C-alpha cells in the first residue's frame, strides 16, 4: 500500500487483508497484464515508426487496474473509459488485431479506421468506448447504468476516469443523479498522480479522490492499484454493492503511468527516479511474477513460454495492423447517420 500512502490522507477505513490468488488467478492475471504491456510497447514502437498517428496514450504501469476490475465482472456488465483505453479493451476481451488496426487507421480496425486510438467500441464485449473529451464518459457511463435499472437487470457499469477528469463539473452532476436514482455504477478513478503535466497536488483541493462522492453520500475507498489482488477484491465489493441495488460506489485506484501522457510528452514534470522507484518496487506484473515463482506455481521456463505466446499475439496484431488496407474512400460518407 505504499502508493496509497503517498496521498495526504488515507481513507479512514483500514483495508482488509488482501486475499491471495489461486494459481489459476495468478497465471491468468499475469498473462492478461503482460498482453497489455507488450501491446502498448509495440504500439509505442509503431508510433515511432510513423504507423500510428495523432495522439497515442499508453497504459503501461496501470495494467493491474483493468485486469483486476475485469475479474470482478460478469457477462452483461458494461465498461466505459476515456482515451487511455487500449488496456480496457484488451481486458474486455477485444481482439488485439482489431485494436491495433484501429490505431493504424486500417479497415480491419474496430471502428473501420474511422475512430482511432481514442474512439473504439465493442457492444458484444460490453466496451462502450473510448471517449476523447476528459470527463464526458462519466455521465455516459451513468446513463449506461441507468439502462440497467430501467431494464431491471442486475448489470453494473464500470466508469473509469482519471485524477484530472475528477475535476470536471459533469462528474459531480453524474454522481448526484447516480446516488439519487441508485444507479449501479462503479466509478473507478485511475489516480496515476498526473493529468498531462499537472500533478494532482497542483490541481486538486481535495487530493483524496475516494472522498469526492461524500457530499452525495457515495462511499469510496482507496485501493492499491498496483496489486491486482487488491483491485479484484475491492472491485468485487463495489460491484456487489451496486448489484444489490445500493447505488454507486467509488474506487480510487492508486496507480502510475510509466510513459509520458501521450507519445509526444517529454515528461519533464517528474523525475526519472520517481518513475524508476515505481517500476522497481511496485510494478504490477513483476509482483505477480515474483509471487508465481515464490509459490512455485510454475517455473521460469513456463513463464518464458507465456511471454513468447503473448509476444506472438502482439506481433500478429502489429503484422495485421501494418498490412491491412486503409478504409475504402467510399467509407468517408458512411455511418454519419443511419
Amino acid at each position, binding site marked *: 500500500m505504499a502508493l496509497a500512502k503517498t496521498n495526504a490522507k488515507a481513507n479512514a477505513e483500514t483495508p482488509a487483508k488482501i486475499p491471495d490468488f489461486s494459481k489459476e488467478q495468478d497465471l491468468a492475471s499475469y498473462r492478461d497484464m503482460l498482453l497489455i504491456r507488450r501491446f502498448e510497447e509495440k504500439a509505442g*514502437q509503431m508510433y515511432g515508426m510513423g*504507423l500510428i*498517428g495523432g495522439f497515442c496514450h499508453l497504459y503501461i504501469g496501470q495494467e493491474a487496474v483493468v485486469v483486476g476490475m475485469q475479474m470482478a465482472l460478469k457477462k452483461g456488465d458494461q465498461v466505459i473509459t476515456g482515451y487511455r483505453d487500449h488496456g480496457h479493451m484488451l481486458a474486455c476481451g477485444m481482439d488485439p488485431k482489431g485494436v491495433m488496426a484501429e490505431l493504424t487507421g486500417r479497415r480491419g480496425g474496430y471502428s473501420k*479506421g*474511422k475512430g482511432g486510438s481514442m*474512439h473504439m467500441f465493442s457492444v458484444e464485449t460490453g466496451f462502450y468506448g473510448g471517449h476523447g473529451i476528459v470527463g464526458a464518459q462519466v*455521465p455516459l457511463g451513468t446513463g449506461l447504468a*441507468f439502462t440497467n435499472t430501467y431494464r431491471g437487470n442486475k448489470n453494473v457499469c464500470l466508469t473509469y476516469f482519471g485524477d484530472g477528469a475528477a475535476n470536471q463539473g459533469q462528474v459531480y452532476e453524474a454522481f448526484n443523479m447516480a446516488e439519487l436514482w441508485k444507479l449501479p455504477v462503479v466509478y473507478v478513478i485511475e489516480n496515476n498522480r498526473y493529468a498531462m503535466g499537472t500533478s494532482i497536488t497542483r490541481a486538486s483541493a481535495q487530493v483524496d479522490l475516494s472522498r469526492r462522492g461524500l457530499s452525495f453520500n457515495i462511499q469510496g475507498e482507496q485501493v492499491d492499484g498496483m496489486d491486482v489482488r487488491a483491485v479484484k477484491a475491492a472491485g468485487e465489493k463495489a460491484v456487489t454493492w451496486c448489484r444489490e441495488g445500493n447505488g454507486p460506489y467509488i474506487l480510487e485506484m492508486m496507480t502510475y503511468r510509466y510513459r509520458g501522457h501521450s507519445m509526444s510528452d517529454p515528461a519533464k514534470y517528474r523525475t526519472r527516479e520517481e518513475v524508476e522507484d515505481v517500476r522497481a518496487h511496485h510494478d504490477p506484473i513483476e509482483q505477480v511474477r515474483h509471487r508465481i515463482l515464490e509459490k512455485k506455481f510454475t517455473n521460469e521456463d513456463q513463464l518464458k513460454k507465456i511471454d513468447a505466446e503473448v509476444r506472438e499475439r502482439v506481433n500478429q496484431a502489429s503484422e495485421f495492423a501494418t498490412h491491412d488496407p486503409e478504409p475504402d474512400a467510399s467509407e468517408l460518407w458512411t455511418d454519419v*447517420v443511419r
Partner: protein
Amino acid sequence: MPIEVLMPALSPTMEKGNLAKWLKKEGDAVKSGDVIAEIETDKATMEVEAVDEGTLGQILVPEGTADVAVNTPIATILTDGESSSSTKNTKSAKSAPPAKKSETPEPKSASAPAAPAQQSMSDPDLSAGTEMVTMTMREALRDAMAEEMRRDETVFVMGEEVAEYQGAYKVTQGLLQEFGPKRVIDTPITEHGFAGLGVGAALGGLKPIVEFMTFNFAMQAIDQIVNSAAKTLYMSGGQMGCSIVFRGPNGPAARVGAQHSQDYSAWYSHIPGLKVIAPSTAADAKGLLKAAIRDPNPIIFLENEILYGQSFPVPKLDDFVLPIGKARVARAGSHVTIIAWSMGMTYALKAAEELAKEGIEAEVIDLRTLKPMDSDTFIASVRKTGRAVTVEEGWQQNGVGAEIAARIMEQAFDYLDAPVARVSGKEVPMPYAANLEKLALPSVAEVVEAAKSVCYR
C-alpha cells in the same frame, strides 16, 4: 540476428531529430523500459526507451548527429536467443540501411468521393375523408410522445420539471399520470449531466426524449450533444448509434432578455450526425416528433414557445408520421419564393397575404427539417419564380439563410432575376425594452419589403 532500434517519431509531425546523447554504451545490458538515448525534437528533448531485452550491440548513429530522419536505424540490440518468431518483424539483415519508408499505403486519389445523394420521400397521402381535429402545438407534441411511449417500452422522457410539475411549458402534461415515474423523470438542474446520461442510455439501447426547459440552457450540454451523441456512430464505424431526441423551446421568447432569447437553428444544423427539425404547425410537430422518436439517430427538435398555444388542424389518424428531411409548400405562388421554418413561418405567411393584396403571389416554403435540408423543394420553386427571400429569427452571419442562399446560388444561379434577400434577427443580444425587442426581431413588414425589392417593386 540483432534487432534494430529505429529513430522514433515522437510527435504527430516529427520528421527528423538530433541524436543528443547515448545513455548506454555498446555491450551494456538493456531491458525493456531502460532509457538508452536522448533525442532533441523541435519541441523538446525526449528519452528513447528500449522495448526489447538484450545487449546494446552497435551504435549506428553517434551522439551529436543532427537531423537524423525518423525510422533510420540508430543502434542494434542483441537478444539472448529468444525464439526467432517473436522478433522477426523488427529484424533486418542490413546493418545500416537508410530510413525506412512507412508502410502506410499512399492514398490513390486526393479528392473526396461525391457525397451520396439524398433520397426523396413524401408525406403520407391523406385520403379525402380524413377527419381533422383542432389542437394546439403543445397538445400535438404531448400526443406524439404519448403515442410513441405506448408503442415502445424503451421510450422515456427526462428533463427539468417534466413529471410532477407537468412541464415548465406544460408540454409533458399528463405523461407522468399515464406512464409513471420510471418513464417520466424529473431531473435535477444539471443539463450537461442529464444530456450525457441520456446519451449513455441511448448508447445502451434505450430511446430517451430529453427535454431542455429551453434550448438556451442546452449550451451547457452542447459538448455531450455534439461530441458524444452526434459523432459516436461515425467514430465506431457504424457499430454504435445513439437514438435520442433533444427537444424544447428554441428561439426568442417574449421580453425575457438576451440570455433567454436565442435561435439555435444554425448551431445544430452545422453538425454532421445530427438531424434538426423545427416545425411551425401542430400537424407537422406531431408527425415529425413521432418520426424523430423512431429515428435511430440523435435529433434536435426545436420547438417555439410562442407557437405552443396556437391551434392548428391535425389529421385524426392512429399513426400519423411525417418524413424527416422533407419541406412543405405551405402556400403556392409564382412571383417570389419565401423560405422559412418554425416561427419564421408566421412572418412569411402574413407577408404573403399582404403581398397578394398588391398582386405579388409568393410561394411560401416551410423547411420543417433544417438538417438534412430539402433543397430540392426550394430549388424547384426558385427555378419557377426566379426570386427568393429567407426568413429567420436567428442572426444573419453564418445563419441558415446564408446556407439557403448559397445553395440557390449553386443550383439555380441561371434562374435568378435578383440576388437572394435575407430577413433575420438583428445582430445584437436580444434587448429587453419592448420597442427595442421588436426592432431586433424580423417583422412582416421587413419580409414584405424584401419580397418587393427582389421583385423590383
